[in-house]
Every structure is written in structure tokens, then in C-alpha cells.
């Protein structure tokens, strides 16, 4: 009995969550290996320069970063929230100045050996900023001024990331912000109005993009517009002049190609899949090699491990998410609760959008799958976010 009390009184990690995180990281490395093994660019490198190894390296760094975050009570950390927030805003601005352009988008800043994606870090600092801002007494949140300020905190990074352009990452901020506002106790009426207004705006925007004549359309990046058209199954050659039509049709096929191939990968996996490293879609290059190991890693897992693999992956995410919600429920204060809610919403949104994209529930957006997709910034930020959850769990009581 004494032991139990002793254990209860000592800070403890949220082990189920930690184990789920480590497993996801391992699965990620295994299938990144699978996804890149037939890609000459990667497979000719020595093993320690291959993406799967770097995935583990970033995972290790992320673990250390997460542990470091656990060292300091989140309440002390949150005092730096404002610094982190404006720092990441500066980085986002920096992208436009020194950013590296890849496929027409500036998302990365090159720091010699490493490149970082400021938008990933912006998500975390945004959660911290909004949580610490909203952790004030509930009564204050009923003031419109506070509400609008909170909205402003959300819109600023949103617009900057949208401008990169990285629509997927930008859109992620919206559910995270809204759920946090709501969990904080903002009057639901306002949120519903916001949602209503936002929803109408999005519908109008979509109608404009999809159906309006070109000169009336909202200026969207060409590839974004096409992705949307592909998602909604609209023939973008429908009202083009005849000579253009064939070219546009070809283009459309090429653009819907990724989604189709991802769907074939997932579907052909069946119950148990074809086995690790046996995925034909990758081996034969039908699943584009450039995206197989990052945005479309899930389709690789689904093809090689079938529905069982998908089920395990989703179960592991569920463990992370539900332990996160429990952490939120057990948190010592509103700050911890809001932080946990923010992190849970962020991870959930990414998982839902990314996996949904693989089975055509969602349009193609460049949202990585946390801990599975290859990409240092994403892995690092996911683990830092998980570290925040552990931190709240650790300091859930007063000692």
C-alpha cells in the first residue's frame, strides 16, 4: 500500500502513449525503407544516408527534445509562448526572404546541413500561444475583444502559411484553434457564427473556383485549383476550346494519378497485404516515388500490410489521442487542459486528413502523417507535441 501511494505521489510518464509513439516511429522507419528501396536516388546511398535511418535519427532527436520539454513544468514553458509565437512568425516571414523554393512553393529554410519547415514549428508555438492566451478566467472570454484577439492570433500564421503556399498546413490551424476556443469556454454561439461564416465563405470560394469563369475566380495557385477539381471529380477540360481539351484531359489524368494510384495501393492490399518490401505499386513506380515515403506513406503500409496494418496504425494513433484527451481531463489547470486539447486536435486532424486523402475521403493536401511520414521537421514537431502531452501528464498534480 505504501508503495502504491509512493508511486501515486511520484511523477509518472504516460507509458501507453509513449509506447504507441515509439511503435509508430518504428513502423514509419520500416515502411519508409520499403517505400524508398526501389528509388534509385535513395537506395544507392549507404544505409546511414537513407531516409529510413534519418527518420530514426530525427525520431531520436525528437525524443530528446520531448524529454527536454518534460524537464520544465509546462506552466513555466508557457511564459515563453509569446516569444515562441513571434519567433515562428518571423521564421514564416523569413521563408519569403531566404526560403528554398521547391515545386513552386517556399516552405523550407536552409540552415546548411539541415532544412527546417517553419510551418511545422509554427503549429506548436501557435498552440502554446493560444493556450496561454485562453487560459485566463472564463468570464474574460465572453468579451468580444478577447475573442477577436484570439481569432487574430490564429489568422496571422494562417495567412502566412497560406502564402507560402501550403494550404494543407494552413488549414490545419483552423480546427486546432476553433477546438481550443471552444474547449476554453468561448460562447458556443460565437463559434457557430464563425463556423457558419467560414463555412459559407469556403463554399462560395469552392463554387467560385470550380464553376466560375476564369476571370471571376479567386486567385488560387494552379496546382491547388487542380487538386480541388480532381477531388471533386470535375472535368477541367469541359469548357476549354477544342485544341486545348486534349492537353487538359491529359493533365487531369496526370493530376488524378497520385490519388488513383494511392487508392489502388490501399485497395490491393486486401486483408493482410503483400508483405513488407513487397509492394508492387512502389516497386513498379506507379505510386510516385517522390511522395511515396512522405505524404503517401500510409498507402505503402496499407498495400504491404493490408487492412490489419491499417487497423494497427489507426489503433496506435487512437492510443495517443485518447491518452491525450485523458491527460487533458486530468490536467491541473486550464492551461494544461487547453494545451492537451490543442495537441490532440492537431494530431487528429493530420491523421484524418492524411489517411482520408489516401482513400479519397479528403482532397490531396500536403499534410504529413505524424511520426510515419518521412520528414525531419514533422517528426520533430510531432514528438515535441507529444512531449507537451507528457509534460502535462507529469505535472498533473501539485507536489
Amino acid at each position, binding site marked *: 500500500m505504501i508503495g502504491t501511494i509512493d508511486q501515486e505521489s511520484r511523477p509518472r510518464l504516460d507509458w501507453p502513449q509513449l509506447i504507441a509513439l515509439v511503435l509508430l516511429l518504428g513502423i514509419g522507419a520500416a515502411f519508409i525503407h520499403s517505400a524508398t528501396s526501389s528509388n534509385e536516388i535513395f537506395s544507392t546511398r549507404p544505409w546511414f544516408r537513407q531516409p529510413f535511418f534519418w527518420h530514426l535519427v530525427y525520431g531520436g532527436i525528437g525524443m530528446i527534445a520531448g524529454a527536454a520539454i518534460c524537464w520544465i513544468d509546462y506552466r513555466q514553458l508557457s511564459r515563453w509562448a509569446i516569444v515562441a509565437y513571434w519567433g515562428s512568425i518571423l521564421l514564416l516571414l523569413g521563408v519569403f526572404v531566404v526560403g528554398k523554393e521547391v515545386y513552386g512553393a517556399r516552405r523550407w529554410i536552409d540552415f546548411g546541413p539541415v532544412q527546417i519547415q517553419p510551418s511545422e514549428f509554427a503549429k506548436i508555438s501557435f498552440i502554446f500561444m493560444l493556450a496561454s492566451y485562453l487560459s485566463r478566467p472564463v468570464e474574460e472570454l465572453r468579451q468580444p475583444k478577447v475573442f477577436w484577439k484570439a481569432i487574430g492570433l490564429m489568422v496571422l500564421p494562417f495567412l502566412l502559411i497560406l502564402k507560402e503556399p501550403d494550404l494543407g498546413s494552413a488549414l490545419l490551424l483552423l480546427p486546432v484553434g476553433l477546438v481550443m476556443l471552444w474547449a476554453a469556454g468561448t460562447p458556443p454561439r460565437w463559434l457557430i457564427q464563425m463556423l457558419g461564416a467560414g463555412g459559407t465563405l469556403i463554399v462560395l470560394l469552392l463554387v467560385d473556383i470550380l464553376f466560375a469563369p476564369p476571370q471571376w475566380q479567386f486567385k488560387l495557385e494552379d496546382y491547388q485549383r487542380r487538386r480541388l477539381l480532381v477531388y471533386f471529380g470535375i472535368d477541367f477540360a469541359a469548357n476549354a476550346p477544342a485544341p486545348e481539351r486534349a492537353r487538359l484531359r491529359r493533365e487531369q489524368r496526370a493530376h488524378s494519378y497520385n490519388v488513383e494510384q494511392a487508392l489502388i495501393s490501399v485497395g490491393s*492490399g486486401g486483408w493482410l497485404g503483400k508483405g513488407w518490401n513487397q509492394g508492387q505499386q512502389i516497386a513498379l513506380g506507379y505510386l510516385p516515388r517522390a511522395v511515396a515515403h512522405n505524404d503517401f506513406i500510409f498507402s505503402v503500409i496499407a498495400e504491404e500490410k493490408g487492412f490489419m496494418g491499417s487497423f494497427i496504425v489507426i489503433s496506435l494513433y487512437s492510443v495517443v489521442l485518447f491518452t491525450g484527451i485523458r491527460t487533458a481531463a486530468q490536467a491541473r489547470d486550464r492551461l494544461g487542459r487547453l494545451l492537451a486539447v490543442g495537441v490532440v486536435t492537431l494530431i487528429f486532424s493530420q491523421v484524418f486528413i492524411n489517411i482520408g486523402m489516401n482513400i479519397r475521403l479528403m482532397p490531396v493536401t500536403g499534410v504529413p502523417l505524424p511520426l510515419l511520414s518521412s520528414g525531419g521537421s514533422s517528426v520533430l514537431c510531432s514528438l515535441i507535441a507529444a512531449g507537451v502531452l507528457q509534460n502535462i501528464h507529469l505535472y498533473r498534480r501539485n507536489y
Partner: protein
Amino acid sequence: MLIFDQLKKDDPQLRALTALVLTGVIVLLSGLWYVQVVASKRFVQNQRAQAYRTVRIPAARGKIQDRNGQAMADNVPNYRVNLYLEELPKLFKDEWRRTKPVGPLKRDERVSLESMARFRVVSNLSSHLGRVLNLPIAVTPGDFVAHYSSQLALPMTLANQMNALQIARFQEQPTIPPGLDLDVQPMRFYLYGTTAAHLLGYLQRDNQSREGEEADYDFRLPDYRGKVGIEKAFDSTLRGKAGMKSVLVNNLGYRQAESTWVESEPGTNVVLTIDLRIQRAAERGLQAALNYTRGAVVVMDCQDGDVIALASSPAFDPNRFIPHISHAEWEALSDPKLRPQLNRSIQENYAPGSIFKIITAMACLESGLDPERILHNPGHIQIGRRVIKDTAPPGDYDFKRAFILSSNTYFITNGLNAGVDRILEICKSLHLGEKSGIPLPNQETSGILPRPGEKPISWHDGDTANLCIGQGFISVTPMQMAVMTAAIANGGKVLWPRLIDRLVPQDPLLSGRAWVYERARVRDQLNVSPRTLEIIRDAMRADVEEQGSGKAARIPGYTVCGKTGTAQVTDGTGRVVDHTTWFAAFAPYENPRYAVVVMVESGSSGGGTCAPIAKQVFQALRQRDLGVPTASTSGSPSNPPTPSEG
């Protein structure tokens, strides 16, 4: 629920968040369930459709063999050098990088320049190969682009039909360039060239699926269909069953792997009754007779109807039809006078001339002609207002003398006494005017038998006189004359000629036993008395053995019996423009075994042109019966072709 239990009752937001996450997880799982379990089959099919290409693999064609199992048409390995394009993308890329112009390019320009770069790589490889093999190999941009765009999953053949030296040269290169490799394909080969060409027939390129076979293939390897002769008649037996392989292709269409889905089943061998040695002896005899002999030899077993040789001259080389015949060669095969494609043994009607006197003789003897009775021949005979000259000298003739000197006067006089109906009755029992049932499609003609009662012919004695000496409204094929000769020799059995001996599966272990065709099928009986046949056989023996017209066929120690004939060929106005010469014979006299009929167009005379050919054939037959090893006389098969024309 476990998840909700951990939450405080008074925390609606977190409860709602939990519900939201749970819903999301369930939506994803049910979506995945649908895609991966419910609709999985569709996606598996989609994947297969995009990643697999099916290829039709023709089966190894059955052999055509002579009665002793000697192959006449066989499959020989065709050594080829193939270019496997899937090994070249890196070279293509390097070449493109090396040669691409600086500055931005339009899409179309880029595509065509890349295509050019690929062609340069292939062109360099093929000219390298050409130097190694010492053989000009030309790949045109058109060829390459066509192959690249429509047959990328298949290798591109650069050199065909390589000989041993070229294979050695290829193999002994210090390093074999990327993408090049040897491969072997079966190729039809007629070992004896023109020998029995009309009989064997030839093949024509045809890759289509046959009935009862998978119809949809992405690619088809070259296949052939029998066009003429045995190759056509037994096409379905010889060709076996095509197999299928699948080629796994990547997103660019390059081959990644392949596997055989359905093994091809080799075709069945067709064994003929032909004896290659006799066939070749007959052909040599024909060819030596004249310059560009136009003629035929039929050798038939008198007792069981087996066709031992069926020769026609001039002949063609069926090997020239593979892979396809050139225009010039086809022109040569269509020469209006020589007509090398014509199988003269069964495919053309000829006036039988004096060999028809065998039938006239039977009719006369059956209607009571006394062979001892003497008839005076004044050197001609007058029928109505028409005078028919007799080639036999004037004098007194009994049956034997009239037969061996082929007296027109004698046979017309007695034939008119016997009557046209009698003659035609015998013709009918010999089934003249009908096909003899040789299974060579579209080749056999039925000959012509006059039908006096029927319009538009108004029949006169002159017509009967003509018929008696094998002229006028009668025409026959050498095959029919062989059946007739055999019937005389074997005591009156009119046989169905038998050309196919048996069908034997190529792989003896494979199920399916040999199918043997029935021997000695009797079609009809000659309703003439044994005495009549004996008189005729004696007369035929005398024609060769005594001072008859067929003495050129005489073989010491082997009694040949025969009848010569020289038929006039007239043009539309009745003017004689040519002669068809004949010799119908059987041997040996004592125990008849073989019937040999020789026909030569534009010969000098039956005895002068045809009898010597028959003699050669009989000599070969005799050696065959004595069991003399005949490797030296039959000649060895020619080597497989090695022209290597790329």
C-alpha cells in the same frame, strides 16, 4: 465506455472532443474496410491491368515426317540477339543529359528530343553489335519509335538467324553491352528445301488467336498459319496450343519481370506415307529429264494404297516463306508457264493419251475380244469423214502387239465394238472424274469424265474413238492413273490413296496416343475378270520387257510392267500445240507391289521421257526393298538457313 469513463461527467467539451475523435477513427476504419476488404478485388484488378501485359507464345509446331520418321519439316533454333530496353533507361537519361540544349524547351520539343536521344543510344548499340557480328544491322528511327511506343515490354530483335560463327563472336566479346542478349526461338525449317514442297505446303505469318483460345493479348510473338498443303490441312494438329506469359511492367512501360501463366502445348507430329528416298529419287528423275521439267510422279503401294512419293516439278522452297516471301520471289513463283506452285500430280487435268488404252483394253476384253485375233492396221483409221493417223506401223496386230506398239487403229476399232458405255463403266468403277481424296486442301482436281447422254454434248462415234485413245473429252490426274495402275496390279481393288500414316504427339510422355490412319481402304472393285487383268498385266510386261515403247524402263532382274502414252494438247482451234507424255507402270510383275505414274508436259514421248524416270524410281524402290542403306542416295538434309538479314 472505457474512454469516456475517464472523463469527468461535467466536462462536456472533452466528452464532445472524444466523440469527435472516435467518430473520425470509425470513419477512417470503415473507409479502409470498404477499400481494402469490400472493394479490394476491383483494385487488385486495376493494379493487374496496369502492371501486367499478356503475351501470346505460339507452341512449337509439330514435325512433318516421312514414313520412316525422317523429319521433312522441323523446328530449328533461331538464334537472335535481342535488345532488352528495360536495361537502358540510365543510358537514355545520360544521353539526354549530355545532349540536351540549354534553356527552356517546349513540351513537344522536349519529347521529340528525348526520343532522339533514346534512338541514338539504340543506334549506337546496334552498330556496335553490327561490328561485332560483322553484319550490317540497321535500326531506323521509325522502327525504334514504333517498338518503343507499342511494344516496350518486349525485347527488340536486332539480329536473326545467326550462324555459329556469329554466336561465337557475340559470346566472346570482353564485355557484352548492356541490354543485349542471345535468345532462341523455334523456327520452321524444311530440311530438304524444295523436296515435296507442294505436299508439305508453306506457312504464312499470322499471329491471331485460333478458335478455342484466349482472344485478348497485349502482345503476340510471331506465329504462322499453314497456308498450303499438309501445313494447311493439318494446321490445327500441327500448331498445338499457344501459351501465355505475363510481363510485369513498371509505370513507364519497361519490363520488370515475367512469368509463364499457361505453358504452350507442342503440336502433334504428322507422319506421312511418303518415303523420303523415293520422293527424292522421283524428283531427281523429273528434274534431270528436261530443262525445267514440268511434270509429276506418283508412287503408290498397289496393295495398301500408301502414297510413297508425290512429286511435282518445278517446285518451290517453302523456307522462303519464312518470315515472309519477297515480292520478286513471289513473282517467280507465279510464272504463267512454269507455275511452280501447281501440284501437277493432283492439281491439273491432263489428257491421258495412250495410257487410257489400258481401260479401253479392259472394256474390249470384257466384251469378248479375243486377244489372239488379228486385225490389219493400214496405218490410219477413218471415223466418219475424219482420218486418225496411227503412230504404230501398218501391219497385222493381235492384242499384245497392238498394246505394246500402242496401235490407235486396233483400240479404236475394238473400242467402238465394245461401246462407249462399257468404257465409261470401267472409268466409273475407277472413280475417274472424282477426287481421289488426297487431303491437300484446294489442290485436288477431279479430272473430267464425259457423260455422253447429257447435254450439251452430242456424242458421236468420233468422240468414242477419241476416248478409246485417251483424247477428247477425258482428262485425268496422275494420281488417278496411279490408282488405276494399282487396281490392275492388285487384281481389281480400287483403293483410296493414303497419304497420312499417323499422328504422333511430339512429347511421348504427354497424354494422347498415336492415331493411325486405316490402311488399304477399298473404294471400289473393278468388275473385270481376273483373266482380263492377267492379259493386260502380260501386255504391260511385254511393253517394257519386249520391244515395246516402254523398254527404257527395263531393269535387269526386276520385271517392270508399263504403258506409255503421248497425248496431244490442242488449242482452241484444234491445232496440236504440245504433248503430254505418260508412263504408267507397276512392278514387280510376279508379285506387284508398286504403281508408278510419270507425267511430263512437253516431253518427247512417253517411252523416251517418262519411262527412264520411272526406271530410276523403280531402282530406288528395289533398293528400298532389298534394304540397301541409302544414306548416300537420299542425300543429307541441308543445313538450317543462316542468311542473317537482320
